[in-house]
């Protein structure tokens, strides 16, 4: 991916007349519901402080908690595997599937699975994969990537979903309603979940003191994917640990409210090991693959705060850039503000340096983050790194150099500034500028407001003088 690729994807997104509607429908609803939930919880800001403190405590003592989790998961009968990289993690999962003689796996939506490229790895290994979350099922049929971490198919309209289901389902919907389409997916997926050899999930939380893995869903697809198969494989980022179920309860309160505005998800399950003697159902084997994939580096470097992230999606729902361009334009596994911080770490800064710039620094993401991640600060960190490492293009470097030259000469700077403002003001039509040399990137998709009065310094002097 290159800078040009990012610009192309943004162009494509802005030119899609349906995308903005789809984005506003889903993210707009989530934003409104979260606001209602937060208004009904006067201590929510304190709850966010506590959630951040719990995560910071775990990240500071991550080695201790990983060892505790490993010991307790083993005691519960699970097998624990460690993966340094995405490839290593995928290899482990494929090996476990092969050892189990698996022909088909049912997968319950997991962003970590997307991050490590697990869908592709399973395909390459010739193992049939059934995505069981309704949205993941839709994008699997469309052969696309998720465009949001909570609503992966938010970019699809009902008409597009209808076409996909008619083309792929054995017994598709009889009427053009969303309820009938959901029913069609229920029919289609149920048999596949019951017939899968392996169930694969992520983890919303790993519970250190019991070795349990917690998943949350509203559809109940995790349980239907993970209970019937003979083998359950969990792939989880090492930062997903909490000390105990009681700590998880606190995290769940802020997670559900931030993601969907609900007090809790419909189904919250803690799986500890394989089926016990006498149990009527549950897998015979449970494997937990603990994935680093850059997390230890983030922790020991400048991105430790990013490891607090609980993947609620509030930052993107409230981001004015995401709301214009949607998730695919970002090009990585994770979109929006949290994605712009994570993608340069996961996929390299050089091809992704644009992400840190595709941000107004308005701070909305930080204001709504349930674990108070200073996302704008972390994005600024990537901007600085990009500058230091010489990744910014010559045009940006020389423009900034020119600006730096002027700004060190205040009189000249003010003179050029006020002349420039007057020129721009005269150039504009009815207060707006729609064509501007050297600023095509700005005015191509929106107008630039023409300056209305004098410069900031001129106004400042006037106001001070008036006192």
């Amino acid at each position: 991916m290159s800078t040009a690729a990012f610009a192309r994807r943004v162009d494509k997104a802005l030119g899609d007349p349906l995308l903005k509607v789809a984005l506003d429908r889903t993210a707009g609803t989530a934003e409104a519901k979260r606001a209602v939930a937060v208004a009904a919880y006067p201590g929510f800001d304190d709850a966010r402080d506590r959630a951040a403190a719990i995560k910071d405590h775990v990240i500071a003592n991550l080695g201790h908690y990983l060892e505790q989790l490993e010991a307790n998961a083993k005691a519960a009968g699970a097998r624990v595997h460690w993966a340094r990289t995405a490839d290593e993690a995928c290899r482990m999962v494929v090996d476990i599937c092969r050892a189990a003689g698996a022909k088909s796996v049912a997968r319950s939506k997991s962003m970590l699975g997307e991050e490590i490229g697990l869908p592709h790895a399973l395909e390459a290994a010739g193992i049939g994969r059934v995505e069981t979350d309704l949205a993941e099922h839709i994008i699997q049929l469309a052969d696309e990537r998720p465009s949001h971490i909570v609503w992966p198919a938010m970019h699809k309209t009902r008409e597009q979903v209808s076409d996909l289901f008619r083309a792929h389902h054995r017994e598709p919907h009889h009427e053009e309603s969303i309820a009938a389409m959901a029913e069609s997916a229920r029919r289609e997926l149920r048999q596949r979940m019951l017939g899968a050899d392996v169930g694969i999930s992520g983890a919303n939380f790993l519970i250190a003191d019991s070795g349990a893995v917690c998943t949350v869903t509203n559809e109940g697809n995790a349980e239907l994917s993970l209970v019937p198969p003979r083998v359950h494989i969990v792939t989880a980022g090492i930062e997903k640990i909490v000390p105990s179920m009681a700590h998880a309860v606190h995290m769940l309160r802020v997670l559900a409210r931030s993601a969907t505005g609900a007090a809790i998800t419909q189904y919250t399950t803690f799986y500890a090991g394989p089926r016990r003697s006498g149990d009527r159902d549950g897998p015979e084997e449970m494997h937990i693959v603990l994935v680093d994939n850059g997390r230890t580096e983030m922790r020991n470097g400048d991105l430790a705060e990013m490891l607090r992230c609980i993947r609620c999606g509030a930052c993107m729902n409230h981001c004015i850039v995401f709301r214009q361009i949607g998730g695919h334009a970002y090009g990585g596994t994770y979109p929006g503000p949290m994605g712009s911080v994570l993608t340069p770490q996961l996929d390299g800064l050089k091809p992704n340096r644009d992400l840190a710039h595709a941000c107004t620094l308005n701070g909305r993401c930080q204001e709504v983050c349930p674990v108070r991640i200073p996302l704008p600060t972390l994005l600024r960190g990537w901007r600085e790194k990009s500058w230091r490492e010489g990744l910014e293009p010559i045009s940006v470097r020389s423009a900034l150099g020119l600006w730096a030259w002027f700004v060190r000469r205040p009189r000249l700077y003010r003179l050029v500034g006020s002349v420039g403002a007057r020129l721009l003001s005269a150039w504009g039509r009815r207060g707006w500028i729609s064509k501007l040399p050297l600023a095509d990137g700005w005015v191509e998709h929106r107008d630039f407001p023409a300056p209305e009065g004098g410069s900031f310094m001129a106004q400042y002097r006037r106001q001070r003088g008036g006192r």
Partner: protein
Amino acid sequence: MTARDAILSRLAADVHSERIAAEAAALLVDPPLPPMPEGDPVDLFLDKLSEAAISATHDRIGNIAALPAAVVRYLDKWRLPHSLCLPPDPALTELDWAGFELHATAAPDETAALALALAGVAETGSLVFETGPHAPMLPNFLCLHHLVVLPQTAIVTRLESVVNAGLQPVRAHYWVSGVSGTTDIEGQYVRGAHGPRYLHVIVVDDA
């Protein structure tokens, strides 16, 4: 070096586990809780069940012997056959189920399944279950109508009461807070995505 050692070596595992435990415990002291109305936990729980987020129905019976009749009431209301997936729990199987077609394992398109809950939580309207030889998990996700028996004495105010009560080290604990739903197509809510479409709670007053 194994992957495990490589990862742990970068984390310089702290050996002061007593300090870590003290810090972890301090993080649970006086948690900022969502407010709840005053009142009896049982009333609050039943109110919560009827809210849109949970949209469950409920019934109350004097004692467990009245359970089969309550199940008949529910099935008849929906004009469903008297067929039920009943877990092999003696507390349930020893009741008089005359006239019922009972089975212990759920069919892929099971109409109705009954389960005994460990607790009910007024804060969220959650029903808490655990797996075991008498308590399979799958029927509660395969069925269309999920019927839940809950002793009134097992209703608590907060999720913390459940967690701190000392749960058994079973294979799985699961909290059911409503019916299976999805908003994955155009953000529109649909009931009964993969799992139950209806949730009915039968509270046993004298359990």
